[in-house]
């Protein structure tokens, strides 16, 4: 009984909060058959939303991956002043609301923002266009690769790198041939988390995008937009695509999880 009770409580809780809702997405989407789903998914707005989401993700993920690896390397392997501050700013996007992120970008690139007049004068549109969406997505997904690589690098220790140096390898060669391969799974896991975050971003892009259907809506904004316009089948269809991607992400996450985090 003592063993039984916690198990039932935990599983019951997970069922109610996590599993049942996920199941509902699949159920509700296909409630009226597959045809409406296909119509919704292949509508121009949906296709555009999908492309826009992919675009900003394709921008954010490589940028943050390179950043994350460089930052992690500097933090773990090198000494420099202000390391704590660097760490704090890397973790910042995790602590703050996406709405705060969106607002801060609005106040920087908007017409009345710091860069506003300069941008207008040069005819560059950032806000309410894809660059702002990309910036927002990059902002919110900054921490993930760095936070995965830091503990891995720390645990690995630099013995191998030192050995490589004594064997004549230059700094760059050591990095490329010894360090990078040893952190590859941490990087993969970090990339998966980054991608998930990019695909799922809502609050920040809701503010900076202008939410013009077919022009500046990402998939998450489309779900909301369709819902607000009582287009439930559209909303569920888009939600289904996102949920399906999420399940794939979850599988990859589970497979590549670094062992010290896995149960």
């Amino acid at each position, binding site marked *: 009984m003592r*063993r039984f009770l*916690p*198990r039932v*409580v*935990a599983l019951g*809780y*997970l069922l109610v909060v*996590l599993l049942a*809702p996920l199941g*509902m*997405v699949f159920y*509700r989407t296909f409630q009226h058959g597959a045809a409406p789903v296909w119509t919704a998914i292949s509508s121009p707005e949906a296709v555009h939303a999908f492309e826009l989401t992919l675009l900003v993700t394709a921008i954010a993920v490589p*940028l943050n991956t390179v*950043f994350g690896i*460089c*930052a992690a*390397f500097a933090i773990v392997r*090198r000494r*420099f002043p202000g390391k704590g501050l*660097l760490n704090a*700013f890397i973790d*910042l*996007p*995790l*602590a*703050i*609301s*996406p*709405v*705060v992120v969106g*607002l*801060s970008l609005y*106040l920087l690139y*908007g017409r*009345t*923002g*710091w860069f506003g007049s300069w941008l207008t004068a040069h005819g560059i549109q950032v806000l309410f266009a894809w660059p702002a969406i990309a*910036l927002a997505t990059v*902002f919110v997904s900054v921490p993930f690769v760095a936070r995965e690589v830091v503990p891995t690098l720390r645990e690995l220790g630099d013995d191998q790198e030192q050995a490589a140096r004594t064997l004549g390898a230059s*700094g*760059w060669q050591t990095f490329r041939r010894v360090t990078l391969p040893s952190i590859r799974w941490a990087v993969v896991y970090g990339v998966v988390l980054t991608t*998930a975050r990019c*695909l*799922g971003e*809502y609050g920040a892009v*809701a*503010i900076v995008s202008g939410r013009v259907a077919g022009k500046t809506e990402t998939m998450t904004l489309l*779900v*909301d937009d369709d*819902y607000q316009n009582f287009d439930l089948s559209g909303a569920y269809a888009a*939600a289904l695509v*996102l*949920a399906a991607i*999420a399940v794939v*992400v*979850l599988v990859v*996450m*589970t497979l590549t999880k670094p062992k*010290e985090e896995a*149960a």
Partner: protein
Amino acid sequence: MADALGIAAVRPRRAAPRGERLGTSLTLGVVTTFLGIVVVLPIAALVWQSKGQGAHGFWSVVSSPEAVAALELTLGAAVVVALINGVLGTITAWVLVRDSFPGRSLVNAVIDLPFALPTIVAGLTLLALYGPSSPVGVDVAFTRAAVVLALLFVTLPFVVRTVQPVLHELDVEMEEAARSLGAREPTVFRRIVLPNLLPGILSGVALALARAVGEIGAVVIISGNNPYRTEVASVFVMNRIESGDPAGAAAVAVVLLCIAFAILLAIGGLRFLLTRHERA
């Protein structure tokens, strides 16, 4: 060996060769420039512009009834959710580490679902299941309970994931020693297990709190966003922007920022205190 003699092992500091120093400066330059443009600059703009209308303007927005209601709801719901997930998350972590049953690794994988699923989709599905057309007859849509439900979803993994590694590392022999000394199971849990789990639980609770305070995507559909009733602070900020009052939005946004920092600092300090026995 050095450890047994009480001497801390000292790693000799080597002077970095010139090539390495150049590489470090270059890397650091790239890293700080990127972070500066992407993160620091926008936040600086936010903090600066929140002062735009002076202290008086700042205060008038933040103390307006609607803002106060939104902040109260946000904080209240966040605390409730952090507590619930603190307890249930610990139980879940316990079951995943100490118990074994068919499908355990599947359940363990599913815990990460809130990290993988877009929050707007989460909100939609919670609405489908616990809203007007609920197949199980539970309708909490457009109520404060909906806010709590949505926040429970998004913060569920935090405590589980911070407690699991601590449980793994926990020396089972400590519990056996306690039993051999005559302690019954509840005492073993209360006096031996829980004190060692507490730093991990607190970390998870802090992360859950910080996340819950800022959440928007999961809440925005199912709560209905009624001002004074079910409008959370993040929605309030968004409404202020849409109403053409970015300074007002910035004021409340800065409050949210400060709350997040306060949470992280407070819990960091608490953790520090709780783990002083580990520092030799």
